[in-house]
């Protein structure tokens, strides 16, 4: 491997260096160093930033702010982030979780990026450059993104309103067959009043299941009432095929696992 690493103390300076051709940002290294090890010759140099704010976790007034360098392990052990900890723990084994960052997960191609699936369901915002972008728009344009992601923010979900499921063949750690995150608001009688469902491995990046979300509105979480949502969840998906599962298999089992998540 032949890479030149430049270390900056500020995001501003690193952003300028990142504009050079062949330059990539180094976070935890689980994507970019892996790529270089595999022979990705499109990367000739790396930049990283040591600014402490990038590793900060702030939970205040029901709002969570995660610096882009915050690791999955840090999220999993944070006492105020228990609601989203299952999604952080779903990422790799212990060593990977000690390295993989929030910012990097936003760029992870399927079948990786399980935490980004959770962030999509949580309607997170992504801070890059000078502004905030809704995560759905950020994910859609991530391939052209040249500004360093500095943070993500989201409202901490209320107890039992957020659900996350990762399906893998190897337990307790394994690559995703698929992952699903759901943020459900319900009335006192259990009727769903709003729903955001995000899917992993159903495209090259996390995607919303918008038809299924609409089908859930006004429903109670019973087998009968969620049936239309399960029937609709495959709309618009283009699952990946990899050594873990075929696109056909992923599409076939998606409604089964969504049903289990909703009825759990």
């Amino acid at each position, binding site marked *: 491997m032949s890479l*030149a690493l430049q*270390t900056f103390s500020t995001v501003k300076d690193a952003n300028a260096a990142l504009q050079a051709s062949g330059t990539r940002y180094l976070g935890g290294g689980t994507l970019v160093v892996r790529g270089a*090890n595999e022979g990705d010759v499109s990367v000739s140099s790396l930049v990283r930033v040591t600014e402490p704010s990038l590793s900060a976790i702030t939970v205040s007034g029901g709002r969570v702010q995660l610096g882009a360098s915050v690791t999955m392990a840090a999220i999993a052990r944070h006492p105020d982030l228990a609601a989203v900890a299952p999604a952080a723990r779903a990422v790799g084994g212990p060593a990977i979780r*000690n390295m993989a960052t929030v910012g990097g997960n936003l760029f992870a191609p399927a079948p990786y990026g399980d935490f980004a699936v959770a962030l999509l369901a949580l309607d997170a915002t992504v801070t890059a450059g000078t502004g905030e972008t809704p995560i759905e728009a950020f994910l859609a344009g991530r391939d052209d993104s040249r500004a360093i992601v500095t943070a993500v923010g989201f409202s901490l979900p209320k107890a039992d309103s957020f659900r996350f499921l990762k399906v893998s063949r190897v337990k307790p750690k394994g690559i995703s067959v698929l992952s699903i995150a759901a943020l459900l608001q319900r009335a006192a009688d259990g009727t769903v009043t709003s729903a955001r469902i995000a899917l992993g491995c159903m495209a090259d990046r996390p995607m919303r299941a918008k038809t299924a979300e609409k089908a859930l509105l006004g429903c109670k979480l019973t087998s009968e009432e969620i049936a239309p949502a399960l029937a609709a969840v495959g709309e618009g998906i283009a699952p990946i095929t990899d050594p873990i599962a075929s696109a056909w298999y992923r599409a076939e089992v998606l409604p089964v696992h969504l049903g289990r998540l909703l009825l759990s």
Partner: protein
Amino acid sequence: MAKVPVQFTLNGSEKAEFIESGTTLLHALRDKIGDTSPKGGCHQGTCGACSVIIDGELKLSCLTLAETCNGADIRTTAGLAEAGVLHPLQRAFLDAFATQCGFCTPGVIMAAKVLLDRTPNPSREDVVEALSGNICRCTGYEPIIQAVLAAARANSQNAA
């Protein structure tokens, strides 16, 4: 490629080297410093054979650039034995026949060490979770799990 200075503590000893920028910690340890206990397996972060402990956290040396370890405290399996006496984990792996070819063993032992440092009396589930990033193709996992549990028991008996 320009060479850059890297300084860190390895198993209690200060190390200072000039390395090519972009060199992985695995490469620096094995080929520059001569600590061949971390093994290069998949180089993708999947097999765990290269696992080392950096500032108390288990990390993969194949995905860590050596330059990012300036000033760090790094522990590898080569530093576990003291004065020729095996570490209790190493002894337990021998006693439980938890190692065959030995390629995965250094990474497994470092993962187990982090576990026992933080959780001296782990459950079987704790051990399985702690070792979930390490692949072994020889023994199957049961002897390894039993070895870690035995090391934990030995530690608690010594502490009592």
